């Protein structure tokens, strides 16, 4: 019996070891002021890869298996398709206008590109053919776009249109809209079945975020970030009209991380109760975006005016590394290579 248990334990260790050895995690950090993107190994915080030739890169997305990366280029007004292993460009796909952020469906079949040029659109890229197959018109240029984790909806935020548009992914038609303010980054809290429960939405000139009940399709509360640092240390900007830019729900669903540009800090709220936890983390610069490792142990926050990414231990809420990257780092994502 003991021998059988030992055999089982050994087998379990081998299987787990093989699994972790084959899945590599990378933090993919765009650099909005340049043409390169850095890949960081979160186990060492070292830069282990670089994609080049994507001028004024904005959005990033990774195929679910890590076989490809996608980047929008504001300079070229294209979507770059990059091989996940060689990090070489496979194709550059022309878009209907100047792109901002992008998002990929959970099955990896479609990439959605927010088009910020007037009158606004969400371009749809078929990843098999690597062609733009559709351009969904929107009210106002699109800044950020998100596919919900269950793949059922595409959420597009417009600053100019002062509107959040929720698009049915099956029909590409608008399901519902919300807000009369410029819509900035959004974080999605999910139910156990991966359907969307609440949205945490940053808005133009709001030092905080709105809480949206997804089923009710309405804003249910608004949370303002603390003014908890001495006046002389408050950064006066400019903040691109977005004092709070960068928000994310940890993959384990236990915490919400919200950044403040004036305070150069990130604030952490417990979920689902939205209680502000002690110990905001100083970032030393203006934050732009957050991404987590899949195990929810680390969060990486890009600070655009220091050309750096800050790595923070989620549990202790302490900075563990500062990684120097390229010019004006903004959007970042987590890539899992299987």
């Amino acid at each position, binding site marked *: 019996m003991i021998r059988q248990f030992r055999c089982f334990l050994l087998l379990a260790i081998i299987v787990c070891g093989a699994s972790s050895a084959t899945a590599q995690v990378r933090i993919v950090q765009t650099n*909005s*002021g340049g043409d390169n993107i850095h890949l960081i190994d979160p186990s060492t915080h070292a830069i282990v890869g670089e994609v080049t030739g994507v*001028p*004024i890169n904005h959005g990033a997305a990774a195929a679910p298996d890590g076989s490809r990366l996608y980047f929008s280029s*504001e*300079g*070229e007004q294209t979507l770059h398709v990059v091989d996940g292993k060689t990090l070489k460009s496979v194709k550059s796909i022309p878009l209907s*206008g*100047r792109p901002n952020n992008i998002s990929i469906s959970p099955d990896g079949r479609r990439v959605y590109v927010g088009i*910020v*040029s*007037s009158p606004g659109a969400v371009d749809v890229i078929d990843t098999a053919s690597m062609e733009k197959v559709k351009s969904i018109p929107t009210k*106002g*240029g699109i800044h950020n776009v998100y596919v919900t984790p269950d793949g059922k909806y595409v959420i597009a935020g417009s*600053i*100019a*249109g002062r509107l959040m548009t929720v698009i049915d992914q099956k029909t590409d038609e608008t399901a519902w809209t919300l807000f009369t303010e*410029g819509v900035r980054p959004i974080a999605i809290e999910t139910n156990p079945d991966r359907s969307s429960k609440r949205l945490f939405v940053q808005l*133009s*000139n*709001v*030092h*905080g975020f709105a809480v949206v009940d997804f089923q009710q399709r309405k804003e249910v509360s608004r949370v*303002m*970030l603390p*003014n908890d640092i001495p*006046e002389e240390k*408050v950064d*006066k*900007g*400019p*903040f*691109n*009209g977005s*004092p*709070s830019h960068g928000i994310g729900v940890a993959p384990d669903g236990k915490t919400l991380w919200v950044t403040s540009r*004036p305070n150069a800090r990130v604030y952490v709220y417990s979920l689902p109760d939205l209680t502000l936890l002690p110990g905001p983390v100083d970032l030393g610069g203006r934050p732009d975006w957050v991404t987590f490792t899949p195990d929810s142990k680390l969060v990486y926050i890009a600070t*655009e*005016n*220091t*050309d750096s990414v800050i790595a923070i231990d989620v549990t202790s809420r302490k900075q563990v590394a500062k990684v120097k990257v390229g*010019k*004006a780092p903004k959007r970042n994502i987590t890539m899992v290579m299987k």
Partner: protein
Amino acid sequence: MLQGARGQGIVVRGNRRWALGLSAAGLIATIVLTPSYAGAGRVDDDLPDGEGKRILLASCTSCHELTEVTKFRGYYNRNQWRDIVVTMMEYGAPIDEKQVDVLADYLAAHLGKH
């Protein structure tokens, strides 16, 4: 206008001051403390004077570092620059209709694709 932040209003006023020229001490402190301001200062000096520059400094730098504009140097033609100006108007930038083409011309001439 700015909800929740203690710096309400100061954000705009502070940057207009920057656009109009900071005091020497303030300029030195700004350059030392924030590298991105240093970059903006150099770029500012690269751009020739004119009505377009006046609009650029008055209207764009209330929300953006100048580097957010000049990073597009060499990528856009006039129509594309005009599209950006119109987009920024829609965002709420203080630009009137008459200034759109003046600013688009200026950006195309000095930061445009040639």
